């Protein structure tokens, strides 16, 4: 295996990483397709193209660690270990869904896997992982909290003040910025004057780095360092991952603000799965056959998820009244 820390990653972990990225990709491509049938309601934001970020980060976390996600949360949920079948059912609003049909795409959460929730509020997650960090500190565990935020979200006051807060309180937290160049239709060249988000870290006294978000190995290496520092009591870090989304902001977006070839070019030259496959096969760590086998398994999984989701019952209407409080 050439260069970087990838050489030190066991083959089994690499296979798992590929499986995660492939699962995210297929999940999203399929959701895109199924959405067109009109059976899948609500606003849906797809993560395709950004797989290496969620996967590279979550692969250095333990199940006891927590992540706080965004409106574009499917990839994070899958990478953190949420059940894909239940997730698909949730998107269909079914009783078997991750949230029993109460949450939908923007609220998929599973505390048992450390997934603190997708979030309909941009900038909602960073303050929450400060709480995870404080909790770990006070309880004396070595758990870490990771928040994901987009380039757009990194302009939200809640994100910015959390950077300072975590630094001042020396919390075991990592702020991952997924800079895909757009907040909805607005380009980051405008909305943050084209300046690296990582640079903001300096002003608060936490380390900030920029990595290629299309490169699983680069992301994982940066995440390993940041998470390791957090676990060791070294406080928070920021990692900015330059990435690209393959679909519109949400399903239905006409994307007129993008150059016609922008996504096609990226799919060709900056695809995280292609990059990964090339790297691991060229290095002789994994074979195309192994990876193809995963492709087949994942395709079956997604088929099954869709079939089960479609077959599942809707929640009983009166269940709308449940789950507001533990007791009231």
């Amino acid at each position, binding site marked *: 295996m050439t260069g970087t820390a990838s050489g030190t990653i066991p083959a089994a972990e690499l296979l798992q990483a590929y499986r995660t990225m492939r699962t995210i990709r297929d999940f999203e491509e399929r959701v895109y397709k199924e959405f067109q049938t009109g059976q899948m309601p609500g606003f849906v934001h797809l993560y395709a193209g950004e797989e290496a970020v969620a996967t590279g980060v979550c692969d250095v976390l333990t199940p006891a660690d927590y992540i706080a996600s965004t409106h574009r949360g499917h990839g994070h949920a899958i990478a953190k270990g949420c059940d894909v079948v239940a997730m698909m059912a949730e998107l269909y609003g079914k009783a078997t869904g991750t949230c029993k049909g109460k949450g939908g795409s923007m609220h998929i959460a599973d505390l048992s896997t450390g997934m603190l929730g997708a979030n309909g509020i941009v900038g909602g997650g960073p303050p929450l992982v400060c709480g995870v960090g404080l909790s770990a500190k006070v309880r004396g565990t070595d758990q870490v909290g990771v928040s994901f935020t987009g380039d757009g979200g990194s302009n939200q006051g809640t994100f910015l003040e959390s950077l300072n807060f975590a630094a001042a309180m020396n919390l075991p937290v990592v702020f991952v910025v997924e800079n895909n160049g757009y907040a909805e239709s607005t380009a980051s060249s405008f909305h943050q004057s084209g300046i690296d988000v990582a640079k903001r870290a300096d002003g608060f006294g936490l380390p900030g780095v920029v990595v290629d978000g299309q490169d699983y190995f680069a992301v994982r290496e940066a995440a390993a360092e940041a998470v390791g520092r957090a676990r060791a009591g070294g406080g928070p870090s920021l990692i900015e991952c330059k990435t690209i989304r393959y679909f519109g902001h949400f399903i239905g977006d006409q994307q007129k603000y993008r*150059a016609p070839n922008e996504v096609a070019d990226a799919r060709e030259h900056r695809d995280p799965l292609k990059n990964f496959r090339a790297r691991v096969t060229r290095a002789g760590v994994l074979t195309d056959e192994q990876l193809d086998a995963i492709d087949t398994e994942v395709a079956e999984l997604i088929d099954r998820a869709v079939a089960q989701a479609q077959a599942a019952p809707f929640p009983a209407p009166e269940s709308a009244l449940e789950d507001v409080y533990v007791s009231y």
Partner: protein
Amino acid sequence: MMTRKITYQKAINEAIRQEMAVDPTVVLFGEDVAGGEGSATGEDDAWGGVLGVTKGLKKLYPDRILDTPLSESAIMGTAAGAAASGLKPIGELMFIDFLGVCFDQIFNQAAKFRYMFGGKAETPMVIRTMYGAGMNAAAQHSQALYPIFTHIPGLKVVLPSNPYDAKGLLISAIRDRDPVIFCEHKMLYPMKGEVPEESYTVPFGVANVLQAGDDVTVVALGQMVGFAQQAISMLDGVSVELIDPRTTSPFDDEAVLRSVEKTGRLVIVDESSPRCGMAADVASLVATKGFNFLKAPIINVTPPHTPVPFATPLERYYLPSPERIADAISRLASTKENV
């Protein structure tokens, strides 16, 4: 001779366009209100707002229709500061649900300037915002939080229920010299109705009596006006007076009290949460100032005290349905005179 029909969405767009044409201090800004800002290769005005409501305005007024960073406190503060210094800004809070990241600029700043400063400030700003359920947008994108704004002295709160009102109330809002929260129900955008081409205003604090009646007064707001109309059409032999207050602050107390004086019976249909919500507010008005008119208990038809759920059967159950409204009206109509 009023024949042109346009959508609620177009009516809003037209109101903004017409006011921008006559008043160079009107400026509109928010996230993706035009869209495409900063994109080297794509189209400008690529979105016109997340649901296209402000589409086309950027081309007409490129310097006064402005995309912003994703920073609601800065957007709301910009509206307040601009209003206090010579503009008539329209700031967009994309979804009313996002008030939690910027509420201070609205309720402690804009709303209180005039009072705190001893009457010496004017803050003529409009906040356009989208609210309401029915689109499976779930708990953080479906709320009807206008009671929170209505609660705050210093704010005016507007809830158009149809295209005609949307245009006329928005023009009133832009011309108004106080801060106005203009709440657009996302399910009403495609609703069509007769809307005059020329500019006109609908005044604040004047309810719309959609139909006169003698047995039961129904007060309904926003999307619930149409639901109430459906409910009424299901009923036989009940004479219903249907009132749409159009603005919750100021509120047309008189119209409601006058109607209850006639009918003695009141159903309030509202999409906001029940506790300290708009239905409670209207019920309280009548229980304190119109009690002697009442012949039977007031009935509030509202969602339950829960967040808005995602799945269709849950969201349907959550929202007051025409059936539930009809049931309330007919139950009330059949009550014997009390005491």
